[in-house]
């Protein structure tokens, strides 16, 4: 079912007209209201008046996460702060958060694209939607919430955690749609089994899973364990949050809400746009946002765009499920983690940065992050108590910096393999991008 058939199935020509009109308005907005964008465009020798067609998008400068960091917290806002009614934030590379803002209209757009997403999976006003994404600065919880309210579903805002209660609520309230991270869904399935709860006997029929990469085999497992259809949803707080793209019942790529977010795929090295069908870095330009518009934002997510019509009737471009990252960002339990954040903590901890390695695994269906730290002579003591205290203190500092639980393991020097003299910082055993 389509929530907004007018926009979701509009002809390619009409969509391009709409996109161009909105692009021009957005570029004018940032040019006039945000010094950073104006300076960048002046440096590139381009003004809003130079935009003559959608193809001219490629002349606009990119925006990066580093730009967001440099303008922390509100430097890129293109609306008066009095107009901003909501703030969200995600982790940055060095401890500084990436902050985004929304006007009332922005929240309307977000609710709209989220409502489309829910409708795309077959959800509607008769559904009871359990939202087990975290509520708070993270966009997952509130984003899904507003969309679910807009479609008129019964919203069950459980937020994350307390898995036994999640399952009790799911059973007792007759939940039909579950929205959470795919790894948490698997963890719920495991807990249900331990509790002797038969998930197949519940009215649950749809799962909307996102905020972290997952694979086709993982989808099959979730579908089998719950007896539901599991849909992949894509979004990032910088662009708006969840709802940027969603699978339809065909489960063959994610339809992008193209009337609000203009997608491109570029070669991450040459920065040249790639043709549809080619794999590269996803770049988005927001077309309707007021408080936090972004021009050609480099997501660092790898994907492919498919322009072909879909059997579901939507005419929007589809993106392949995320195929990887161009940087070393990890998504663990839905939280963005950069190795550099851990490095900053270790730097604070002593005079020299010890060699470290992050090992990410899935244990009992839940992401597990182990931080291995090579014990240097400065850190080493012959008393177990002192070493245990050292490990615990590093763990506490990392946990407070990242906001997730980690395990710290002290290891021998040189036991972390080096390639070309540089330590291999991350081992991800989750196999997220396969299949």
């Amino acid at each position, binding site marked *: 079912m389509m929530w907004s058939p007018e926009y979701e199935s509009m002809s390619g020509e009409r969509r391009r007209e709409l996109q161009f009109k909105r692009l021009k308005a957005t570029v004018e907005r940032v040019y006039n209201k945000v010094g950073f964008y104006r300076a960048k465009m002046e440096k590139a020798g381009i003004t809003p008046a130079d935009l003559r067609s959608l193809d001219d998008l490629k002349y606009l400068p990119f925006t990066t996460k580093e730009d967001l960091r440099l303008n922390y917290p509100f430097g890129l806002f293109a609306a008066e702060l009095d107009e901003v009614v909501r703030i969200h934030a995600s982790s940055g590379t060095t401890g500084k958060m990436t902050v985004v803002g929304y006007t009332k209209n922005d929240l309307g757009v977000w609710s709209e694209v989220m409502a489309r997403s829910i409708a795309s999976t077959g959800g509607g006003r008769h559904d009871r939607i359990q939202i087990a994404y975290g509520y708070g600065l993270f966009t997952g919880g509130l984003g899904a919430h507003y969309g679910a309210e807009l479609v008129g579903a019964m919203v069950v805002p459980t937020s994350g955690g307390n898995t036994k209660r999640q399952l009790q609520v799911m059973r007792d309230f007759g939940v039909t749609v579950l929205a959470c991270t795919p790894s948490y869904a698997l963890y719920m399935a495991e807990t249900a089994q331990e509790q002797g709860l038969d998930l197949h006997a519940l009215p649950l029929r749809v799962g909307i899973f996102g905020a972290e990469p997952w694979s086709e085999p993982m989808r099959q497992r979730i579908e089998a364990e719950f007896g539901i259809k599991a849909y992949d949803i894509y979004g990032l707080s910088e662009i708006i949050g969840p709802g940027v793209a969603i699978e339809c019942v065909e489960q063959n790529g994610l339809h992008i809400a193209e009337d609000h977010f203009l997608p491109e795929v570029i070669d991450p090295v040459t920065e040249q746009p790639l043709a549809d069908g080619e794999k590269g870095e996803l770049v988005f330009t927001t077309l309707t946002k007021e408080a936090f518009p972004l021009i050609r934002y480099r997501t660092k997510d790898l994907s492919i765009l498919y322009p072909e019509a879909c059997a579901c009737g939507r005419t929007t471009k589809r993106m392949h499920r995320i195929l990887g990252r161009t940087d070393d960002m990890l998504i663990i339990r839905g939280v963005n983690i950069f190795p550099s954040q851990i490095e900053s903590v270790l730097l604070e901890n002593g005079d020299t940065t010890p060699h470290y390695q992050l090992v990410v695994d899935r244990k009992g269906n839940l992401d597990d992050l182990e931080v291995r730290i090579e*014990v*240097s*002579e400065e850190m*080493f*003591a*012959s*008393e*177990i*108590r002192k*070493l*245990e205290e050292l490990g615990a203190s590093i763990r506490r500092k990392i946990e407070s910096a990242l906001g997730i639980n980690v395990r710290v*393991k*002290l*290891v*021998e*020097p*040189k*036991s972390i393999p080096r390639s070309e003299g540089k330590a291999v910082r991350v081992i991800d055993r989750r196999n997220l991008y396969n299949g």
Partner: protein
Amino acid sequence: MKVKQISVFLENKSGRLAQVTKILGANRINIRALAIADTADYGILRLIVNDPAKARAVLRAEGLTVRETEVIAVEVPDQPGGLGRVLQELDDKGINIEYMYAFVGKTAENAIVIFRVEETDRAVELLKNSQVKLLPESELYHY
């Protein structure tokens, strides 16, 4: 009369201890005493050897994390109650023990107990004129 113990950080992996002793053997270093403290992930090997400086150097050269730790070595009569009297004396003098381990020397009349205490210098000072017999380095390493 502080003496030197060599402390080595070892992960709980098979063959680690064999490797350390092999390095020491190849460099003709004799182990006088040894103790291991361990956790789930790692252990600390504590060694008394005949040549601590050389032991440290060769183990470091092999990439191990090594430290010299100051400890005291006490000669204890190898008979019932021998250790008890020493511990009582330490307690009376307010010397806190971090860890300890014992070995029997070649003569078999006395045992040697190695103590890691909180404040080594203070402990040595307090024990100087007591019943507790501290062994100097020269004697300990070749005991």
